[in-house]
């Protein structure tokens, strides 16, 4: 029982939770480095007034 509980808790902790979805405020993340982004922008709130297409990606 204890093992099962540990497994469940581990799974819950590893779960990414609910993904950011429609209507939710986007977290204001900061750029540690950036290329070709909006001149002067260092974080997401610098894009206020623009519509942003945000893609989360990885180099394969």
């Amino acid at each position, binding site marked *: 029982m204890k093992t099962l509980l540990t497994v469940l808790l581990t799974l819950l902790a590893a779960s990414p939770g609910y993904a950011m979805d429609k209507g939710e405020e*986007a977290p204001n993340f900061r*750029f540690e480095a950036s290329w070709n982004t909006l*001149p002067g922008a260092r974080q997401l709130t610098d894009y206020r*007034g623009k519509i942003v297409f945000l893609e989360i990606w990885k180099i394969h």
Partner: protein
Amino acid sequence: MPHLVEVNEKYRDKGVEIIMATDVDKAPELEKFIADKKLKLGVARVPDIYKLVKAQGYPTSYGIDVDGNCIWRGHPQQCNDSLIEGWLKDLRAPRVPRKLHDALSSAVNAYDNGQYGAALNGLEKLLKHKDEKIKADAQYVADLLNGRLEMNKAAAVIHRNSGDLERLVALLEADARDFSGLDYAKDCASEAKKTKAGKAYKECVEAREKLARLKPTLATMKPADAQKALGKLSKDYPDTPAGREAAELAREFEEKK
């Protein structure tokens, strides 16, 4: 990714910005990738971005409105013209992000309508108000507006230095309108007018139009002919964004020969 390049070219000047965020921790690897792909899309290295947006797979993409709220989530391949044009219908000035003292209602109203010059002028007296709450709220809005103004000034410097005069004029004209009532707006209007009347601006427009006409024909041309046509354009308009793009494309055709 190629379709995002198209989206970027088509909608960037209409108010849509692409941010490709990655948490890759090896900056040189990322830099090499951007250089190898000649990527012109906005790329940002953001530690923990995957966790921050609670992404559930790669790649995941989001649409974010002018106030910073998520309006769409999906796969990048689902991003198409009708989706973006739907978002653009809601393109407006961002709203003040928090509730403020009623004394600021007129300035907040101006801000929400994109009349930033009027908003800043309206805040002037409130910044010296004896009520600390009003003063702090006025300072908060003034900081938002001055931050925007400084960012636009920084962008103008970049466009000016790179000879991207069409983008410079678009920015100056927008600021002349939005910050109307301030000396800054007058300066913007005057520089926009002067720039538009100049030879360099006309060359930027001509080069862009010529490259736009040339591009669709490149695929059917022999690499040597395509290289020649692009080379001529880049030589005729060396200091323009389209001229530089033509030079880059000519190099690609040189490699294909």
